[in-house]
């Protein structure tokens, strides 16, 4: 087990190296560079830059160098922990994304916990009470949850709360705390705002997860080990929780891997609609303005999250399922 985890951890640096290449190629893929889109933006607002100025900037940012050299310069800086400076915001990237990253993690983690906490019990109850009112109710609920785009839910809720209660529910902070330094009051204010985006973001995932859990569990409920456990005299609830639920969770655990980065990228539209100070909208803006180092950093973070997520689900799966454990170590 430990050996297996160490093996996986040793692979991480190699994976990260490959990711930096992919991330760099991705952000270089659109035609032009930051300056072209910057000039276009300037032109759109009626001002312009002269040739010399542009060339000076291009040399300053190193955009005139070949791609390979640009890449290794970036990589070198990354290795020393320097994420670089955002061309668009003219501020160090670490400073720029630090706060947003925390909030994104908070929102993503909250959504994740919310999803599992709600979906798994619904799935279990639906499967064990198949074709009951409860089951039908949540089947309908889940269809609606899966079918409704989250940004739509967000818009509807925002409109309702504004129209009928006069409350603006966008953002994660009340106006007076938006730019305030972190304090207890600001944290409490955050928690007051955080639950709604969590519910909105989590609805879709909850519905999906509950459906999968129900289906997985239904498959397990007819297995002979259920009958055997009953024949042993186990109480129904205890045996359901010990055997089939455990086995039904296994395939779900392996989905945590891609669920983790999905929470971050998936929330871009909702975050934009609800004006959440998370990382999604920042990536969107960075991509539009071709702010390559910022976009690269964020994409890299996504990739790291995907790797961490996969690692977590692999470890969980090995821990949950001895059959896999034996295969891997033996």
């Amino acid at each position, binding site marked *: 087990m430990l050996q297996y985890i160490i093996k996986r951890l040793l692979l991480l640096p190699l994976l990260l190296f490959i990711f930096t290449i992919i991330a760099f190629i991705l952000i270089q893929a659109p035609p032009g560079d930051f300056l072209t889109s910057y000039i276009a933006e300037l032109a759109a607002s009626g001002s312009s830059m002269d040739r010399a100025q542009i060339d000076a900037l291009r040399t300053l940012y190193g955009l005139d160098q070949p791609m390979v050299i640009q890449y290794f310069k970036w990589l070198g800086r990354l290795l020393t922990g320097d994420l670089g400076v955002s061309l668009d915001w003219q501020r160090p990237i670490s400073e720029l994304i630090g706060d947003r990253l925390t909030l994104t993690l908070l929102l993503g983690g909250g959504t994740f916990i919310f999803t599992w906490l709600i979906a798994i019990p619904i799935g279990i109850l639906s499967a064990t009470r198949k074709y009951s009112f409860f089951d039908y109710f949540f089947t309908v609920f889940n269809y609606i949850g899966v079918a409704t785009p989250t940004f739509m839910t967000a818009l509807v809720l925002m409109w309702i709360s504004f129209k009928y209660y006069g409350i603006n529910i966008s953002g994660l902070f009340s106006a007076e705390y938006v730019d305030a330094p972190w304090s207890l009051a600001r944290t409490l204010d955050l928690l007051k705002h955080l639950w709604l985006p969590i519910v909105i973001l989590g609805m879709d995932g909850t519905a999906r997860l509950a459906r999968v859990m129900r289906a997985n569990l239904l498959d397990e409920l007819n*297995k*002979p*080990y259920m*009958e*055997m*456990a*009953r*024949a*042993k*005299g*186990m*109480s*129904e609830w205890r045996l359901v929780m*010990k*055997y089939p639920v*455990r*086995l039904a969770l*296994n395939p779900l655990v392996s989905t945590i891997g891609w669920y983790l980065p999905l929470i971050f990228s998936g929330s871009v539209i909702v975050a934009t609609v609800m004006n959440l100070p998370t990382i999604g909208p920042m990536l969107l803006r960075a991509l539009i303005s071709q702010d390559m180092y910022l976009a690269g950093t964020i994409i890299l973070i996504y990739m790291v999250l995907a790797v961490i997520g996969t690692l977590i689900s692999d470890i969980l799966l090995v821990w*949950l*399922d*001895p*059959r896999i454990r*034996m295969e891997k170590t033996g």
Partner: protein
Amino acid sequence: MTRPTDEPLLSVRNLKTEFVLDEGTVKAVDDVSFDVHPGEVVGIVGESGCGKSATIKSVLRIIEKPGRISSGSIIFQKPGEQPVDLVTLDQRGKHMRAIRGGDIALIPQEPMAAFSPVHTIGNQLIEAIRLHQKVSKQQARDIAIERLKDVSMPNPEQSLKNYSWELSGGLRQRAMIGMALSCRPSLLIADEPTTAIDVTTQAQVLDLLRKLRQQHNSAIIFITHDLGVIAQLADHVVVMYLGRVMESAPIDDIFHRPQHPYTQALLQSIPTLKTVNRSVLPTIDGSIPHPFTRPAGCPFFNRCKDAMPGTCDRHAPEAVNVSATQLVSCFKFQSDGSMERHK
């Protein structure tokens, strides 16, 4: 061999179990009666789908929806205790759960599937022990090792740490039998325990069951479609067909004086030492009717060589005593006025 005269341990009377499906109601067990005495091995034989498993699941009260016991009684009486009708107990209630696994234990058909693949044998064995006995985990572990020794498990301590899929088929079934024995049940129910294992291992498992029965005097209900296995083990045989008991008699009567045409046909289809080499074995014509299109009257009449048109296809025969211990459910014997009708 005559049947013991003491009180039966288990007395099933007119048991009916049905499954209510969208396509119709399947009468899986239809008016089944039989007794099991302490220390006795009762074999229930029949083809697939004849209601053997449904019968023992009814006894264990683990018939799940959409199935249900619609009538009849299952009286269970531990020696020296009050008899209790299992049908009246709450299927998931405490009393039934105490009997299940404690007094009546199951040896399942496929030990591979009956063990959870993600829990160790020890975990599942200790759980079975602690469900019925107030002992600590360590004590339960000691009992578990003891039971595994009872079933001649090599290296019991190690097997507790194994997962079911790490053991061979025979050892798996041994572990299962060890688990069934964990609380010293007075009745063991073996549901085709030798079907999923090879012939050599089969013989070992049968030996083991025979030995255990002698040592602990536990009664066994043994379900199989294999008459050869029955011949080796059973004292009394119940022959079932499509949910009904065709014939019920001591082992010698079944093999030497079978009365019901179905029993006779079954026995003829087994090769014996006297069978001429390369001759075609007699088979029973036709196949078992589909449960939804079950014929009226005797369920066997359309395949029966002795069927009497006008009688067998209209009415269901009742069980008749052809001797003190042999019951036959056939009109051939009902027409004889001297035959005493069974209650």
